[in-house]
């Protein structure tokens, strides 16, 4: 298996996206789109931290829902990395989910039990 490039790792992990200029402004972290990935039932939040990373359980690595037209890749193994506040307005696979643990005091469930400040009233 060929070694991935740094850019490919960045996309696949979502971790390296936290560089200056990418997601650090007040506007970036406070703007909640109409259809945030964090409210989709296919979004699986990072099990490690509540920094907003997660992956899609339907779309695979190589997808890009922010492009126009969007790219939907359903093949491959690894999930497509997204953020809770990613705008999913172009995603045709979007299905809104309801919180189970609304107060957030239970333990994490990557699939169903996420709670972050920006989505408190959603």
């Amino acid at each position, binding site marked *: 298996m060929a070694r991935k490039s*740094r850019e490919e790792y960045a996309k696949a992990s979502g971790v390296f996206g936290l*560089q200056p200029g990418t997601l650090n*402004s007040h506007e970036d*972290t406070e703007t909640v789109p109409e259809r945030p990935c964090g409210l989709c039932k296919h979004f699986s939040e990072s099990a*490690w*931290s*509540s920094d907003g990373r997660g992956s899609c359980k339907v779309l695979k690595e190589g997808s890009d829902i922010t492009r126009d037209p969007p790219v939907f890749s359903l093949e491959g193994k690894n999930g497509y990395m997204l953020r809770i506040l990613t705008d999913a307005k172009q995603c045709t696979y979007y299905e809104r989910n309801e919180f189970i643990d609304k107060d957030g005091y239970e*333990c994490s469930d990557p699939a169903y039990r996420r709670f972050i400040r920006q989505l*408190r009233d959603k």
Partner: protein
Amino acid sequence: MGVTAETVKELEQKQEWWWAAEKKRSKRLDYLRKAMWKKGAIGGLYPAGLYIDLERPVLQTEKAKELESSPDPYVIKFAKMLAHVLDNKTIFITDHSQLVGYLGSHPNMITWDPTLAAILNHEVVNDPTAIPQPVEENLKIISEVVSYWGGKSDLDKILPHMDLDDSMKVLSGAIGWGVPLSRGGYSGKDYEYIMTGVRAFEDVIAELDRRIDEADARAHEPGATREICDLYDKMNMWEAMKITLEAGIRHARRYARLARIIAENFETDTERRVELLQIAETCERVPAKPARTLQESLQYDLFIQLFSRNEAIEGAWPARPDYYHGPYYEQEVNIDKTLTEQEALDLTGEFLIRAAEVSQYKPKWSREGLQGIEGTWVWTLGGVNKDGSDACNGMTIALLQAARLVRVANPTFAFRWHPKVKDEVMREIFECIRQGLGYPSMRNDPILIANAMNWHGHPIEEARTWAHQACMSPSPCTKHGFQPMRMANATANCAKIIEYVFTSGFDNIVNMQIGAETPLAEAFTSYEQFFDAWVTQMKTIFSILVRPVNRARMLAPKMTPRPFLSAISERSVESGLDVCDPSISRGNAWITAFTWVENADSLAAVKKLVFDEKKYTMADLTGALAANWEGKEEMRLDFVKNAPKWGNDDDYVDSIMLDCLHEAARFSRELKCPSGNNWPILPENVSGNIHYANIVGALPNGRRLGDALYDGGISPGPGLDKKGPTAVLKSCSKIDHISDGRAFLLNQRLSPIQLAGEKGYQLWKSYMKTWADLGLDHVQFNCVSDETLRSAQRDPEKYQEVIVRVAGYSAHFVDISRKTQDNIIQRTVQGLA
């Protein structure tokens, strides 16, 4: 005390120990205990009333910006940033206190260090409960701090130098937790250097000055060698160390000044004025000069711990307080009689409270995995001196008594039992257990000293100085033996080993190929093939977790230095190298093995029901697991009820447990840390069994996705140990606790009714004798009835002070999630014969 002895007695008879303690402790301790803010997260979030402290991140950011154009090397810039915080942070003195110091600006504030990881900073941004008012205004401040540190934090700097594939897998959160950072984990201390009363900060500064002058002179002698080049770095490191020590002295003297100002200008109570002047004198003395009294010794220790936590997030508190504070206790209480036992008890109780309130904002995995506490402050008591004689002293007893009075859940104690421990000490330990503290845990000192020599080659005199590096793992407190940073990401979620055998290493929860691509499980035609795949997955997961730690240890001295911790470590003061430099450390690494026993129970189920009895095929089982047992309930119950389970003295499954441990132990000697030493495994859990419940898929032991995992170590699954406490001990005794791994956690629940009175003590003592004779290294007890725990679930306000043993730590029952509470109630209550 205003309450009749009968009232206390009644409460004790009803085993309402927490109310009895409230009435028994001094007015001072009662005030201080009630003035303390508990800081542990419940589930994943901090409880109401706690807020993230923005003072420190603002101070750090303003200094970092100021130093951007400075010609200073990074280590000196870092030291100056630390000094800036210590020189400018808000300080306060709690009423009635005799010890001072806190990380935050207010007692209900959780400190946040933005220099560690952009990921952590984004957790702060997303936090739904702890952003202080006014939220909108403070969010803007947070955004500015987050923006500045993006790309500049330790993890951002380190990650690009790591293997990116490994990093991605670690940060998925599926197979482990923690970060490979020298400023985020468990920092041991070179107590033999800094806590024996021989030297304090001014002595070290004098030593640093001498070394800098000598190096400078040597660097300017005629000649040019590699050694001379290295001296430049060493001089910078020594200078950085000195900056932090001087800042520490200045910080303490700010407290001295504040205490004096209050005493001389505001305090009207004569007694309190004397106490404040005593605080002033103490803080003028320590940490600059060695302690002379118990108060000074405790204050000195507290300053060291706080300074170190100003430098790093420390998730543990390795300490041996009776050993290092004991001489002051003996001198003042028993020889000079300048301190009464009650006064010493007040100081000791307050020391526990000051430690309990320490808090640093931590990532989700830590908030969930260490529910109800701030970190594993497992303090080590008892044990032996370097010559093998009993090390217990008056301070050992004072600490055990103080714990019962203040009833904090953190720190907890772990007691190094050995055959020379006196009965009076054993009775004090028993009282703590009987009164439901869940601590001390009991550690078998001769076994663990032999273990330390076996796995890491610590010489016996050094091995005998050991303290708990975190919950369980011993580490010496000596120059080359102590562990400056145990990076927590060598913590394996071992249930994934067996899960991955069925998915060829693909993780369905985080959508990632993490494990080895072993053959499809359906294709296995023998148990041996199946077990081989298990070994491959075990080796793969352990390697993914260990490699980043090794790499980070090599990068740490230059990229994430620890000038303060270096300054209190003989090997760094002597060498001019950062304390994490592997070349000056013997190595004391271990892999924490969470969710370990699921493997033995699952392997046994597959062996029996698939390969021996041929009741099911591997295809049947793989399909059932993929479907999370849905539509297969009858089959699932077969795997629960009709497969042998660990902890019942059943050789069928016990031999499989040994096979797993032997394979892991063999591989542990192939894995090497940068110091060249081994990586033994250490099965234990904190509340990782709950954190991982929704991250581990269905398993062949009958567990479904979402079910709590076992409570860890080598503890049998809750309710699955059906043959009594001796059978549990016998299963556990088949393990060689010296050579099969680094340590093995065992949780046991005992009946509080059975432990009542002298008879209860004798029963427990007899149990402990069996435990010791069988050569187990650890056991810890929960001794709270189901009735009390269920009442606490129904009416938490009335049971705020009930403490339970969760795993390697204790917590107040009301401070853990409902799922964790249920898991504790589910554990088998063992009757002692």
